[in-house]
């Protein structure tokens, strides 16, 4: 009994923190999502599913949701494939490998705000990327990549891919290290070439790592905010779901409405995560 009590005592800092700063806000915001609560408002009413109905007829929210999906499906495949290719290249022993490995990982440990500001300059009129695109005949938007509805979101996505690949490359490297070397030796004895080994050994055994990467990248990408906040402030059709929540909650102080939007996003992320975990489980069973 005493042992159990001391166990709870030791766990209490986490339990209290969890309850106070995670569980309570989570449940409280769920309750708020069914009300018309606004800051400064003396009273508020229960509106049932009113906020959710309003959201699905709100053009700004639908656009934000659409942009979020474009961001998720437009970045994850590229991030994953590029990270895998880099991991395969860097895994081999060659001189200066550490420099490349550190170089690719560097953006992942740099502040997102710093990167976003640097890229804002690179993308602007007269910025290096703008000049480069002009030189190779890509005819970039006259006023810069971030000041055009056609290129702003794509530009933020490209930056996100550049920034994320290093981290996922490291995860792939860890996965590659865990593949037993004997499998490759046996394959080589059997006369397998590079691609045969890649498709028959490397990729199947990397599947759990790849799925893990896809899951965490999906969650992260659905929550994209800082890049949008720093680079475009949601202008030029770049508003995303979390940015919408921020605008509704912290600019307009419509906490009930913002909570409802946050819960829709939560359900979407939860849905995707469940699907991906099921795939992961199936993979382990087979």
């Amino acid at each position, binding site marked *: 009994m005493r042992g159990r009590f001391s166990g709870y005592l030791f766990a209490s800092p986490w339990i209290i923190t969890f309850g106070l700063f995670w569980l309570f806000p989570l449940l409280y915001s769920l309750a708020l999502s069914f009300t018309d609560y606004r*800051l*400064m*408002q*003396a009273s508020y009413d229960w509106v049932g599913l009113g906020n959710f109905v309003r959201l699905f007829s709100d053009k*700004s929210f639908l656009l934000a949701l659409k942009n979020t999906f474009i961001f998720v499906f437009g970045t994850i495949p590229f991030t994953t494939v590029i990270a895998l290719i880099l991991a395969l290249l860097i895994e081999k022993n060659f001189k200066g490998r550490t420099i490349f490995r550190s170089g690719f990982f560097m953006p992942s440990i740099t502040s997102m705000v710093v990167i976003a500001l640097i890229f804002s300059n690179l993308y*602007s*009129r007269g910025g290096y990327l703008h000049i480069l695109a002009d030189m190779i005949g890509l005819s970039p938007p*006259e*006023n*810069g990549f971030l*000041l*055009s*509805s056609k290129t702003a979101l794509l530009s933020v996505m490209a930056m996100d891919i550049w920034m994320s690949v290093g981290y996922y490359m490291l995860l792939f490297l860890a996965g590659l290290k865990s593949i037993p070397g004997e499998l490759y030796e046996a394959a080589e004895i059997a006369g397998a070439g590079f691609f045969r080994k890649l498709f028959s050994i490397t990729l199947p055994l990397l599947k759990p790592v790849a799925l893990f990467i896809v899951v965490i990248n999906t969650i992260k990408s659905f929550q994209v905010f800082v890049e949008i906040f720093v680079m475009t*402030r*949601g*202008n*030029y059709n770049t508003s995303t779901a979390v940015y919408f929540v921020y605008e509704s909650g*912290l*600019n*307009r*102080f419509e906490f009930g409405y913002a909570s409802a939007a946050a819960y829709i996003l939560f359900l979407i992320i939860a849905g995707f995560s469940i699907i991906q975990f099921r795939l992961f489980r199936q993979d382990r069973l087979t």
Partner: protein
Amino acid sequence: MKNVKITAGSIILILCGLIILSCGGNGGQAKLTWWQFWTDPAIKPTIEKMVADYEATNPGIDIEITDLTWANGHEKIVVAFSSGTAPDIIELGSDWVAEFSYNNQLASMTKDVIEDTAGFFGWTPGIYNNEIYAFPWILGTRVLFINRDLARQAGYDDRFIPVNWEDLRGVCYDINKLGKDIYGFGSNAAEKHRLYKKVLPFLWAQDGTIITENGKYAVFASEKTIKAIEFYKELHDSCSMVDTQRRLEDAFLEGRIGVIISGDWLLKRIKNEGLKINFLTTLIPGPNYPGKSFVGGEYLAVSQASKNKEKAIRFIKYITSKENQLAFCKANYSANPSNKEAARDPFFMDDENLQIFVKQLEMSRVPCATPQWVYIEDIIEKAIEDILFNDAPIADEVYEANSEIQKLIDSQ
């Protein structure tokens, strides 16, 4: 046992003494809390001196200043109102007064300041439902800045000033022809809270408006709005550098833009950085001279929950007095005091640029004092963004924006 009783008795006596002392310790001293946004080292000492002088001449008053930033000041004020911890006096942006008045967070000061109204500019944003909730302090309007060197190269002599849209169009087009990296006009990117301020003056110049005076009907969809946006879009598409306000100002100062719309902060920048640029300021033209500009500014309000309302209003009157506004404007190189007497001072009248700002202020207007302005602004900016950057049909966007604004009004 006896010792225990003596000790307990002593403790109780000491505690009672402390309580009595703490209650009467202020000797009738009233503490006023003031949240304000001026943190610039150039101006903060002036504000502190004003406060120190006030405390010295009003021994019973103690003013406590808290600095806010424009990045999150609005959020802090909303949270303070919601949690009942708002200060006595608050500096507010002109767009916020209606929002806080509507939510019963500000004290009406109509009776106390009604006699002052004739002596000050810019009351409209401070009035909600026919009650005065905020006192105008430092106002800010926008004027036209023209690079004289570029205008001269384009064939305009130094006496030239654009007095109507045709003149403005002409000089912008001609400067734009000067070279590849030279632009006639500086057109704003889709920056929130900025873009509409550059487009709406062209509507106001024709006496157009967004909602009716009684606040019941949206009248944004009009020929005047379409004409205003058509003119701005023509400049935007044909002869403009399009960028953020800061970058446009940089380009103007580097001699790459001929004409931009900007505020007194640009004058301050030119002065503080000692920039050698040959420029002039002039009134924003209308289709036929004169035009109108946008005006916003800083307002001082008293919290509804304040226990020292009367003292707070007296302090506001002191801060907005002629002497203090002059001291403030000189320290900050601000062009638009709300105090009319201050605006007539030689400091403004002898400076040709500051004089233009004072004149423009008399021909400026605020969008509309409504608690829903934050939503209306969003709708208008979205429509303008679609028109300028996505080539959406002007009339369609304007009529759609109008119907959204009307829906908002009806839902209130």
